[in-house]
């Protein structure tokens, strides 16, 4: 069953190619998704009423609709109104928009969890609004949002496989092609799975270490 020629000659090169495409999808999507999520999340807490409402609607929509439908709309649907995107940019756009919605939720939760009294205390000491945000709000919000946003990156690693559905051939796509050609689905997808398992496990470990590095005694879940 295990055929070295197949594995090393055909499958692994294809999978490795796909892995690189996956990484090229994941890294920008995670970064932009986080950035955009911070902006939207902050707007949803500190912005004027219309910004908050718009942010809430955006978040509810992109969290309530399956990612695969969002990708279909972007890649197959937008051409109906004249916007033509290649598979790769379409996939990144879809991932960023969806990921940012989830990240904004975590950022918002983190910002809201900071007890108001600390802001008063900072003001009483003479901190300007900007300094209060930089030195009191941000350090705490980052720590509170870290688990959620970190997990979102791990989700992105797994859901990057959906790029296959809009013909962006990454790891899963390459696997499907090789497996369909050789009829060796079990073997191929066990390897594909192993690649993802490795990425996810590595990312989880890194996240855990980062959380530990930033941890402060008693600064756990948001107290109600």
């Amino acid at each position: 069953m295990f055929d070295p020629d197949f594995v090393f000659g055909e499958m692994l090169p294809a999978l490795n190619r796909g892995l690189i495409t996956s990484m090229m999808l994941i890294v920008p999507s995670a970064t932009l998704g986080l950035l955009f999520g911070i902006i939207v999340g902050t707007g949803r807490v500190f912005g004027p009423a219309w910004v908050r409402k718009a942010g809430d609607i955006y978040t509810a929509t992109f969290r309530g609709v399956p990612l695969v439908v969002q990708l279909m709309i972007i890649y197959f649907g937008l051409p109906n109104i004249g916007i033509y995107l290649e598979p790769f940019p379409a996939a990144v756009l879809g991932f960023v928009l969806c990921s940012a919605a989830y990240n904004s939720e975590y950022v918002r939760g983190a910002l809201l969890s900071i007890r108001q009294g600390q802001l008063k205390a900072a003001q009483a000491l003479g901190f300007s609004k900007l300094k209060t945000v930089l030195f009191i709000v941000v350090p705490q919000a980052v720590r509170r949002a870290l688990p959620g946003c970190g997990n979102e990156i791990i989700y992105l690693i797994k859901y990057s496989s959906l790029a296959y559905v809009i013909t962006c051939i990454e790891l899963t796509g390459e696997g499907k092609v090789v497996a369909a050609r050789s009829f060796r689905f079990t073997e191929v997808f066990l390897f594909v799975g192993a690649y993802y398992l490795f990425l996810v496990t590595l990312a989880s470990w890194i996240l855990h270490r980062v959380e530990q590095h930033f941890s402060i005694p008693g600064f756990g879940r948001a107290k109600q």
Partner: protein
Amino acid sequence: MTDNATPILRVEHLSVALGGRPILRDVSLDVDRGQLKVLIGPSGAGKSTLLQCINHLILPDAGTVSLEGRAVDAHRKADLYAFRQQVGMIFQEFNLFDHLDALSNVSIALRKVRGMSRAAARERAMAELERVGLSSRHALYPAQLSGGQKQRVAIARALAMDPKVMLLDEPTSALDPELVGEVLAVIRDLAKGGMTMVMATHQMDFARALANEIVFMERGAIIERGSPVELLAPGAGTRTQDFCSRLTDLCEESC
């Protein structure tokens, strides 16, 4: 130039309404250097609001606050921040910064607001923690401190800024009874050392022993004011004494 005749803090005709309801009605108060003024009164009287209006955490609708003869212009940010640096505030819920240890809580304003160097701020912060008896706990985080310790750190944090006036908003109300004493001891030392303070509290023994003047508030206005002797002498028949005896019935303190 201030002389001893000018009050160090002057509050004139302060009024504020929150959510449509008037909370402070035309309140005026003068505090002389080194005085301890105690605000007492039932909940909802406006004591906390008055204190927060003094340092403009709540913006008054009308009236002025003057420090050493200079009125605060609430609309100029720089003026406001400078004013707040000179007025220290202690909160009922402590409001320590959760992400910083005790030492950093005390030193952060020195570094980020005053612009002191890290080393100088650290030295000053340690001195203040020493003053309140907590230098051994400088590396602990708020979550690791008892209520009384948290409040003492909060006092150290306010003192580090060399305030001209300290505002204390029911500093011991959130503490378990056995921890109240350690905080009151620190406040007493401050008073004896000549710090000008305005304090809202239910601690009647403390007020009677140390206050220069007791100010009784009810429903947003000052009803009575006078020295503890005037207001609380037996048979004085004042509203203050009446309120106080009701408090006594509740907490079995002598009044």
